[in-house]
């Protein structure tokens, strides 16, 4: 954006979104059953009415789960990617297990986590971690694999040992992959946190949405979800800006 490109506003996408919202609005008004299909304006109205509990209690609760879960996932994912890159045998042992772990339907198991870890924060963190560590691990590991052999060899001819090659070549080379991984993981982490809260919690956007469901408040179900996607977009934009700043060489 600082490069002054005119493409920072995607006009066709904005128009399409407005048209879709208008169709939704018209359809909802015609159906006139807000408990099944609330209109966009009703949702926004609800978001405004409920701003106190949503922004003061439930958004912070969800963001706490997201923050802790993402932090654990980043540490776990980077750690796994690094040990797999360092040692071929570790890669052979871990890689299939990591792939297999993704066939487990985490959402279906989540109720068990609530039994194991209670209604507190950790059952939600676990769901978040299980959903997000995989894209981080695999994307960063692919990044390590993509480091050009001829660059590694060049470093060797300069007399670099493995540690130097890791710090001066592999770490910077993997940075674009790392940012991609984080951008993929953020929406997933919000979904993970919401699922966890949906199944059993005392606060959080997922919990709030479910409570509104039991009260047949359609707009109240949607409002926290709208907030959830806005949070995801803001976070991705922040990471995107950081990426712009640190990875000026992408696509070279």
């Amino acid at each position: 954006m600082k490069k002054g490109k005119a493409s920072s506003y995607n006009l066709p996408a904005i128009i399409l979104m407005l048209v879709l919202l208008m169709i939704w609005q018209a359809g909802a008004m015609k159906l006139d059953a807000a408990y099944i299909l609330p209109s966009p304006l009703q949702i926004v109205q609800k978001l405004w009415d409920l701003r106190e509990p949503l922004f003061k209690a439930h958004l912070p609760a969800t963001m706490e789960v997201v923050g802790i879960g993402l932090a654990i996932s980043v540490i776990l994912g980077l750690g796994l990617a690094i040990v797999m890159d360092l040692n071929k045998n570790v890669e052979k042992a871990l890689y299939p297990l990591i792939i297999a772990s993704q066939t487990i339907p985490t959402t279906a198991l989540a109720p068990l986590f609530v039994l194991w870890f209670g209604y507190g924060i950790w059952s939600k963190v676990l769901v978040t971690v299980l959903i997000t560590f995989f894209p981080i691990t695999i994307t960063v590991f692919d990044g390590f694999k993509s480091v050009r052999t001829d660059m590694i060899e060049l470093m060797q001819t300069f007399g670099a040992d493995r540690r130097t090659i890791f710090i001066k070549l592999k770490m910077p080379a993997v940075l674009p992959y790392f940012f991609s991984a984080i951008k993929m993981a953020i929406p997933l982490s919000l979904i993970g946190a919401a699922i966890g809260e949906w199944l059993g919690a005392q606060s959080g956007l997922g919990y709030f949405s479910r409570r509104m469901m039991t009260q047949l408040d359609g707009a109240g179900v949607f409002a926290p979800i709208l907030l959830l996607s806005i949070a995801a977009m803001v976070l991705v934009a922040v990471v995107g800006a950081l990426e712009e700043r640190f990875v000026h060489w992408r696509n070279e």
Partner: protein
Amino acid sequence: MSEAMLEFRDVSFTYPGDNKPTIDKLSFSLNKGEFVCLIGPSGCGKSTIFRLVNKLLTPDSGHIYVNGMDINEQKSYCGYMPQSDLLFPWRSVAANVRLPLEIRGGMSDAKMNDKVNEALENVGLGGLGNKTPSELSGGMRQRAAFARTLMTGCDLLLLDEPFSALDYLTRLNMREWLSEQWEHENKTILFITHDVEEAVFLSGRVLAADNYPISRLTTVPIPAEYPRTRATLEEAHMVEIREQLIEKLRKEHS
């Protein structure tokens, strides 16, 4: 006879899984301060010779000496410049040139920067150190890569087809430029190419890899004074040498 800078003694090498060796009991040597081109068709094993010298490959038998010492007993004895410049896109041009100094260590930041600036000045990239590699043209990138190779501080330089990816006119300029650099820097250069004209222009003698597996290298002296120009290549005896070399390599290739 002057002292040998690089010497191969009965070196053999077979790639794992091949039933024929690529290099078979090869012996040859380079004198200090020579500019020698190693020429041969693609895939004949020229690059294997380089990889053996810089220890990316280990010979099955035989010995390689640099400066009279077995390479297995030394570190940082040759500077290698690959075919593509391999400048790291996340580093500035100056930081790229600095890389070998950083790896070797034991030099203050200020001293490294001084050396880098001097080297950039020498290769005609003075003041461009803060640019990113993508902001340079192909020829400039190769000059930066050459400066980086010089930073290894080694007297023996191995250049692996460094100009093959450049357009024709840039290539003509670059080889004249490299010839000048060699006269200034007092280095021994082994230069791989499959371009006969380039080889004849640059080197004091050409080593032709005209047999497979490589068991000997045919030496062809190039009797012309430096500095050379494009006109040098048009002289009758130079044309003749060039034609002979092409004939030799074609016969072997078919």
